């Protein structure tokens, strides 16, 4: 995208304008397009899908009234929230209170700059791509802390404080797991990391060696905690803190927090896909050779589906697990995840000095282990489904 704009400037599309102004205009336009065409529907549909998936897991029906199967529910919710009164409590710090949702939103939205949807579908392939993501997602904690403080509500304050402790702590295991991959790929650029992998599972960093395999799960867990998802949703813990830092929010400001939360799910999946699952890499088929559009579509779909798989896993986890307590959360991070991610980092570095053949053997063993785990997992899922007699409950009764 950046290269494309450079090209446009050279061709004189922004003639008579300083280069910086041209960049600014392009940035705003790109942001608008990304926001309205991709991010907003994505977060909205994710919210709908989560409610449907969740409902089905709980033998309920879920939203099914607006549009076919309720797929437009998010639009109705959005309009409803736009029409609601934007209430600012009298005792609140009005300016910070109003600003906080935007800070959270910006922190989440900025990550889309470096998410590679395809070989050419990236807003800017920064050479510090993954570091940039870690940096801007930290902005979210500032917003949440602002919301918690400015609401002048004790529940909000507790939620904000919990969130600050949680997000700051979990950035360390997440960062260390990311670092494992950065060492392997030798670059921080998102496209560079993807290019260092292949389309086939055995070329992915996930199965590169046992340590990256472990690092993936460490990253995913830490990312769930950073995204305030169950089992780490203690900042908003509705059974304890009423609604945590969003207690006093209403209308669109309230929605912005959840917009960021649902959109963030996709970001978690996208980063995991980029780092560990080969990103948009597709097999070099003959049909892609002379049609770049088909190739781009295939790449986009590959990336999207891989990333969305993890969104689904996050929904599944949310429907299954209870919530941990705040001290257990901290203990989990500092006593287990941080040391483990150090072990992963060092172990993975040790693998880099291993002979290629030996490394392949370990990679194959990791892949075999992963497949065996997968098969066992699905066997257990099937067992649970059989035991639950789904024919009793899974009939859609609409």
């Amino acid at each position: 995208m950046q290269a494309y704009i450079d090209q446009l400037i050279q061709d004189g599309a922004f003639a008579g304008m300083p280069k910086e102004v041209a960049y600014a205009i392009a940035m705003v336009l790109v942001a608008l397009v990304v926001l309205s065409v991709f991010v907003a529907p994505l977060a909205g549909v994710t919210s709908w899908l989560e409610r449907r998936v969740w409902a089905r897991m709980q033998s309920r029906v879920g939203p099914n009234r607006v549009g076919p199967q309720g797929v437009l529910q998010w639009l109705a919710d959005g309009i409803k929230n736009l029409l609601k009164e934007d209430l600012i409590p009298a005792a609140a710090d009005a300016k910070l209170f109003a600003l906080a949702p935007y800070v959270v939103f910006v922190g989440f939205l900025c990550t889309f700059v470096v998410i590679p949807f395809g070989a050419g579908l990236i807003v800017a392939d920064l050479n510090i791509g993954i570091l940039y993501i870690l940096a801007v997602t930290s902005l979210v904690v500032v917003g949440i802390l602002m919301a918690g403080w400015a609401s002048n509500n004790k529940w909000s304050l507790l939620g904000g404080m919990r969130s600050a402790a949680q997000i700051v702590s979990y950035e360390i295991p997440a960062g260390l797991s990311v670092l494992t991959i950065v060492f392997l790929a030798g670059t921080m650029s998102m496209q560079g990391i993807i290019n260092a992998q292949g389309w086939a599972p055995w070329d992915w960093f996930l199965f590169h060696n046992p340590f990256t395999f472990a690092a993936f799960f460490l990253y995913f867990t830490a990312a769930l905690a950073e995204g305030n998802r169950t089992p780490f949703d203690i900042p908003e813990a509705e059974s304890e803190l009423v609604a945590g830092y969003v207690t006093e929010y209403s209308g669109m400001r309230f929605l912005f927090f959840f917009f960021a939360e649902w959109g963030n799910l996709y970001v978690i999946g996208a980063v995991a896909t980029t780092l560990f699952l080969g990103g948009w890499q597709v097999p070099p088929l003959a049909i892609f050779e002379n049609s770049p559009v088909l190739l781009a579509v295939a790449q986009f779909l590959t990336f999207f589906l891989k990333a969305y798989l993890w969104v689904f896993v996050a929904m599944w986890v949310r429907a299954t697990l209870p919530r941990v307590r705040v001290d257990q959360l901290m203990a989990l991070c500092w006593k287990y995840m941080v040391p483990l991610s150090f072990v992963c980092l060092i172990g993975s570095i040790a693998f880099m000095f291993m002979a290629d053949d030996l490394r392949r053997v370990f990679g194959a063993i990791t892949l075999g282990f992963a497949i065996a785990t997968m098969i066992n997992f699905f066997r257990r899922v099937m067992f649970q489904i059989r035991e639950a007699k789904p024919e009793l409950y899974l009939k859609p009764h609409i």
Partner: protein
Amino acid sequence: MNELAETQGGFYTEDMTISVGPQHPSTHGVLRFVVKTDGEVISEAIPDVGYLHRSIEKIGEKVTYHGYVPYTDRADYLAAMFANQAFCLAAEKLAGTEVTRRGEFCRVIACELNRIASHLISVGTFGQDIGAMTPFVHALRERETINNLMEEICGARLTYNYIRIGGVGYDILPETCARILEFLDHFEPIVAEFNRLLSGNKIFIERLAGVAVVSKEDAFSYNLVGPNLRGSGIKWDIRRDIPYSVYPELEFEVPIGTAHVGSLGDSFDRYWVRIREMQESCKILRQCLKMMPKGPAISKVPRKFRPPAGECYARVEAPRGDMGFYVVSDGSEYPYRVRIRTGSYTAMSIIDKLSKGIMVADLIALIGSLDVDAPEIDR
């Protein structure tokens, strides 16, 4: 402020007072706690009861004995059958009324179904308090089946008015018996599934094991009853120890706290006692359905029910423990005095003691594990 800061090592802090409830998602109705916390750690949680007081005891002095039965439903709307039964037992004791044998079995069947329903709510909402949403919905799904059965038995889904003085309002039909058996066949595996989903969950156990431990002595001195008492390892069940109705003829175990994940009397033990009580109730139901004799469901009771002057106390084992009705008669059509004793009220009193030094999240787990129920506290 600066002087205070100096006395506290240069850093002045003060406790935060939070009002948990009466409108709070996990206070199960309208309870209120005034909680003093130091950050997340609670230094004091004072229960504040009385938000759901409906003068049910006073109403008892103004209506006839027969007319009071529907009011008792409202004492604990999650387990209405037990209040029905306790009041009817008291009235029958006063007047010396015989209950037909079939009526007794109908009572036990209805009560045990109601116990399962009440415990389902308890363990389900408990899971929700801990943050697990799915078990709650699954529990309510099963309870819905019980509500359907209850509707078949007595025409109501929540406030039954089923048990009358001298027996029960309506006989349980053979079709309904078959459907209850069908439900039991379906429900017993569901308990196992529930255990796989929630009770065996590592996070769930970590959250509850060793949290808010009630020692045997405390359980006695604070007068805990029912599953809360048994969770502390005391084998005391009114059905077994002060038998009433046909319970002496039935075989069932009294589950007590096992401390298999934490220490005896912790939150998990109280939860686990409820899960196992549901299984015991299933056993009782199966026996009752087998043993139920033919005959009338209610004995002849005069419409103008005038027990001789006197007083009596009848107690039953409700899901929230020992539920007692103290009824004084002056020989007229109206009770002279009715007093209800419920388990949740005493359970509330121990929260103050247990909450010292635990975290805010643990307070929610504690309230859930004691299964306090707002209507039963205030009556």
